[in-house]
């Protein structure tokens, strides 16, 4: 079973986000970067499947040179090799990102391609489905369970209707939802071995510019902090002042 997992380098969910001097991107000062949590769940499940069935796990990452750190982390967790699409920046929309990833994934052996449900920075939740569409592969999003057998995947998908049990022919694309797998910590041995694993680095062309980030700004501050004496007063305020019930 040859598995490909696409990962993204993002600010940690505990990070405070400050707007940078350009007014269009974040100030990376003091921010810890990590593998996007849902991508990490996808990677963990891919590693488990490899341990159960044999095969390979290849990590693909579109990101700046600094993303080498997150790629090493993925290799230390147990991925076999990596492809780093080095992005000099400039901002790409989901379609621009997906085109580059689809081209890269298309050139690798893949019985299944795994993504996180969304990257926790841009919050589009689109790239997995886009890559599937561009490669002509079936796609199941929001997977909380993924089992792969010869030529067939059986997955649980969390939808509004409940948990859907879905069968899909491989190769296919899956996106990970919380609950799929709890990412492991790399072992010391894993960290040592990761240093010797191959990373294929490629430069990518600049973005098309069809989608422009014009501005990044902090959200409006909430004027919170008002204290209410008791439940009775609160119920009255919600009814008469806030008019929300």
């Amino acid at each position, binding site marked *: 079973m040859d598995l490909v997992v696409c990962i993204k380098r993002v*600010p940690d*969910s*505990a*990070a405070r*986000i400050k707007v940078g001097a350009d007014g269009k991107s974040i100030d990376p000062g003091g921010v810890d970067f990590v593998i996007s*949590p*849902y991508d990490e769940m996808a990677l963990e499940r891919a590693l488990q499947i490899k341990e159960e069935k044999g095969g390979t796990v290849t990590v693909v990452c579109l990101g700046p040179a600094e993303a080498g750190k997150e790629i090493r982390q993925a290799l230390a967790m147990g991925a076999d090799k990596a492809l780093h699409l080095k992005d000099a920046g400039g901002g790409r*929309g*989901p*379609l621009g990102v*997906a085109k580059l990833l689809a081209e890269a994934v298309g050139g690798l052996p893949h019985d299944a391609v795994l993504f996180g449900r969304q990257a*926790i*920075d841009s*919050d*589009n*939740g*689109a*790239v*997995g*489905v*886009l*890559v*599937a*569409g561009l490669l002509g592969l*079936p*796609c*199941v999003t929001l997977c909380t369970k993924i089992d792969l057998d010869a030529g067939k995947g059986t997955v649980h998908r*969390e939808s*509004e209707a*409940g*948990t*859907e*049990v*879905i*069968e*899909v022919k491989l190769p296919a694309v899956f996106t990970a939802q*919380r*609950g799929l797998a709890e990412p492991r910590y790399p072992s010391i041995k894993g960290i040592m071995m990761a240093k010797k694993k191959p990373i294929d680095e490629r430069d990518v062309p600049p973005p098309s510019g*069809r*989608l422009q*980030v*014009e*501005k*990044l700004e*902090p*959200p409006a501050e909430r004027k*919170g*902090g*008002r*204290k209410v*004496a008791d*439940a009775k007063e*609160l*119920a*009255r*305020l*919600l*009814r008469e002042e*806030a008019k929300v*019930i």
Partner: protein
Amino acid sequence: MGSVCAFLESAKGKLKKSCAEVMGEGRRLAGELGGSLDAVILGKGATALAGDAAALGADRVLVGDADHLANFTIDGFIRPLAKAVAASSPRLVLMAASVAGKDLAPALAAATKGALLADVTAISAKGGTVRVTKPVYAGKALSTLAASSELVIATLRPNVFRPAAPEPGRKAPVEVVETGKSAAEIRTVVREVLAKASEKLDLTEADIIVSGGRGLKGPENWHLVEDLAEAVGGVVGASRAVVDAGWRPHSEQVGQTGKTVSPKLYIAIAISGAIQHLAGMRTSKCIVAINIDPEAPIFKVADYGIVGDAFEICPLLASELKRVIGV
């Protein structure tokens, strides 16, 4: 070429609540673009909903109705949607940023090479450029994006846009969309649906959410949250700490690695307010916090806070809310 095409989602034989929001915004944007507003409805039994789409302001309704569209699948829905969009030839396709919309919009972008703007909270089309505001980093920042593509596909965050008021009896021409051949072409087959979710709304669409945190000490105390939700007709949510501890399912998690919500009323019970939780609910219209710790960060964003023991306050608040709602 200045028209807007709105994809309308249905469930249990009715248009979903978000459809009025999509149509309200669709009508406004069609005005800015100087074009008309088409609505697309797909699903088994979709034909019966064409009148409802007309009532919400559609100038034309495109319907794809077939047995193999009974369950939502990307494979099943993308073909008729792409056909409908080709027939409509819009500048802008709109749909709700719902579970299905988040699947369909990127699938449509892959099929049409249109630019995708996901989960937007404001949108304009003045001067022909589609410009949106979109929360990023789970709402810790807002991004303004401009798309110059010929075709733009945008998903609208539920509960943000002003819904269209239905005009009963309003009529619009209905056209049939080819739905593809059969279920055999759908490569993802839904074998069954387990643990059917309650009849309640999904968190992202709920008007009122009551969430509980670790201060409730254990899953056995969750009735405090549920009773309060029941009293105000709300949906139950949870903090990450509670989900990580296994007290509640991850589908109820509100926050940066859970669901991002903007209900009319968000009640946080015994939730301290970690950055990643605040990111997921800070756009709620009214926030209430109940916490024993007066220094809890949740109070900084709460419109109304009560410092005190949730175990005492919740039952009192439930009965007080029932009383005032009953008035």
